[in-house]
């Protein structure tokens, strides 16, 4: 059994409070300093100590292999707030024991927008990987592990060999997630699936004292992996699991440090990157007519587009896209793309029960979803006004009527 250990690194550009009265003021939408301060904190608690343990493990255990994805907005913030984090990442990549995974540069919902937005964002991310790490990704993941038949076809068109997806029964229909599958819609695209019970043991449950298995030590965890039947086990989680979601005092960093050796000692198990898994033949094609994700109990897009606030905000952003693309101004295009980052919509989540609601509140940078929505819409309205007036300047004969105060919804 190959352990496919995959960690996702992302930080969004959170918006500043942008009031209705700030429309037209030229104030930036993003509070750069606040974002960088947050980044520095997480770098201290998580990125540095966890990367150091991973670097050490790669030198102590030559068979230790794993995978990473790094969003463009993460790299931008790291560069400004903690460049040593990028140095550590580069060191890891240089060992040859780490595979990088492709995705959108902005951790965005571009997969719901008309082409070619998604392709452009994925290409931009690929260019960033190449430039910064000299790496080329063969495996693609979508934001929040979104996956569908259409996305598999997209991956095929961009020459990716595999996609990551949630090992959810809605996709597997009783099969085990511990095999390599292929996309029914694009059979050349392999599917590598997240074993969510085993992943969530670490990602969610590790520090829960109510969990009967608490405390989770590496030996016990590795024995579960050893007993899990199949060819591969996808342990996919946020990188921030190690030191941020679970703080150092929970013992999570020690767990991370002990894991490579513990797997090494178990003869049933071996480490592999997502690219190593491509050597395995797919056991069956899987169809996903509806887009799924790795979030919440329903594994759908409800966390981002489940309520009226989220849908109206996304529709407004989508409409603005037509204007921004028509204009083609690189500054406005960049600002618009940052508004597509999925986190903005996640903050507008209202409903939810039990565990899901707790998770949403933990990740929100706003007091309430209404704050998040109003703020987002103000910034978007401002961006729209700037776009419309720039279009008016460019094509005076096609000048649009003055921007009404209400945005299109």
């Amino acid at each position: 059994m190959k352990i496919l250990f995959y960690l996702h690194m992302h930080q969004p550009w959170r918006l500043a409070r942008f009031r209705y009265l700030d429309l037209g003021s030229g104030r930036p939408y993003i509070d750069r300093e606040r974002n960088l301060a947050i980044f520095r904190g997480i770098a201290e608690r998580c990125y540095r100590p966890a990367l150091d343990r991973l670097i050490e493990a790669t030198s102590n255990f030559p068979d230790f292999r794993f995978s990473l994805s790094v969003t463009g907005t993460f790299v931008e913030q790291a560069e400004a707030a903690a460049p040593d984090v990028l140095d550590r990442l580069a060191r890891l990549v240089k060992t040859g024991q780490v595979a990088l995974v492709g995705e959108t540069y902005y951790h965005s919902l571009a997969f719901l927008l008309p082409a070619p937005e998604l392709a452009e964002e994925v290409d931009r991310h690929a260019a960033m990987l190449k430039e910064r790490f000299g790496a080329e990704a063969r495996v693609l993941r979508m934001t929040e592990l979104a996956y569908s038949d259409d996305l598999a076809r997209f991956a095929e068109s961009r020459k990716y060999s595999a996609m990551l997806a949630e090992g959810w029964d809605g996709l597997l229909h009783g099969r085990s997630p511990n095999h390599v599958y292929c996309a029914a819609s694009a059979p050349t695209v392999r599917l590598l699936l997240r074993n969510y019970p085993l992943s969530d043991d670490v990602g969610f449950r590790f520090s829960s004292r109510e969990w009967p298995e608490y405390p989770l030590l590496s030996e016990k965890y590795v024995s579960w992996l050893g007993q899990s039947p199949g060819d591969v086990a996808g342990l996919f989680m946020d990188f921030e699991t190690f030191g941020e979601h679970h703080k150092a005092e929970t013992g999570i960093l020690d767990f991370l440090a002990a894991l490579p050796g513990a797997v090494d000692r178990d003869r049933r198990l071996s480490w592999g990157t997502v690219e190593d898994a491509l050597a395995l033949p797919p056991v069956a094609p899987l169809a996903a007519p509806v887009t799924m994700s790795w979030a919440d109990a329903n594994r759908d897009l409800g966390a981002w587009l489940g309520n009226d606030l989220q849908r109206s905000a996304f529709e407004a952003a989508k409409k603005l896209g037509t204007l921004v693309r028509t204009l083609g101004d690189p500054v406005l295009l960049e600002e618009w793309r940052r508004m597509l980052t999925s986190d903005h919509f996640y903050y507008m989540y209202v409903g939810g029960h039990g565990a899901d609601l707790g998770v949403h509140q933990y990740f929100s940078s706003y007091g309430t979803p209404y704050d998040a929505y109003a703020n987002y819409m103000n910034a978007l309205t401002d961006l729209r006004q700037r776009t419309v007036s720039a279009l008016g300047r460019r094509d005076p004969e096609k000048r649009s009527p003055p921007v009404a105060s209400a945005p299109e919804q």
Partner: protein
Amino acid sequence: MVGWEFPPHHSGGLGVHSYELCRELTRMGHRVTFLTPFPGPFTPVNGVEFRHPGDHQDEAPEFPEAYWTGQLEGSPFGEAIDGYNAWIASGSGIGRIDIVHVHDWFGTVGGTELARRLRVPVVMTVHSTEYDRSLGHPWERILWRERFGVQNADAVIAVSHHLARQLEERYAARPERIRVIYNAVRPSPRLTPVTSARRTVLYLGRLAAMKGVDTFLRAAARVAPAFPDALFVVAGEGPEYPRLVDLAVHLGIADSVLFLGHVTEDERVVLLASASVFVLPSIVEPFGIAALEAMAAGVPVILSKTSGVAEMAKSVFAVDFWDTEEFASRIAELLIYPVLQSTMGEGGRADALREGWPERALQTVGVYAELLRGPGGRT
């Protein structure tokens, strides 16, 4: 229960709270003797006996209406309060009781004395403090009664955590004796919003300095030019009325502001049903029951962070009371984004109705029970 105002004669949260609490307590099978200085008439409640000085032909001072007219200084008000308290303490015509429950400062001295004589616990509910009502210039004749009540009660109920902290800071109330029990609002069938050519942004409450109605008008002046269809309605009366009218004129928004003066219960319901946005910009607001009523009516609410409602409600915009720009922006955001207005209205309604008076009464009975069986109980 030692009270003051009671429907239909009431001007704020205290009267509503007393009435609803009496109703729920009697429904649960408890009997309530409600002491008030006024002869009524009061909205009758089954199982509640109203008592006032002089109703049993015993000696009782005549009570002036000075409180209502706001002319306390130089009136015989102090003497009347003393008389009211003496009458309470005498326990004239009161049968066997298990607990004395005093609301606010009016009857603290008499209520405490009565409880001491009958060897029963005394509970005090604080709805607001004299510091708040006077915006930091408390009247000593009221202050000491309030302090006396808080310090001598076996349990103090505050209508918000904000108020509870104040009681600790101002009156050295012992934290272990304080319980927070919020106000509530009765669920009502949702009314069809009154359609009108202009969308209303509503302030509904007394026009007192502590209510921060200035901020409402200044915020209105910031957004009115962009929303010619918006009407800013100020409903209520109070000492600030003439100054606020002047301010509206001075701000150049006289055409966008409507002062309604006193509104009846029925008008209140219609106003809430037709409002697009409700604003409560109070400098001080121990609870803010009008905001809760607006929420129950499905109207999105913007209120100051210090209000009690802001503690218990998630689906509101809570703003620093001095931040006019933020109030203005929040008003504009609710007017401009219809999805925000409807979603927040729905969320607010759910927040407001999550716990009602039956829950509040049960929580209150929980406080009684704690005292009656606990080591602090005097029975």
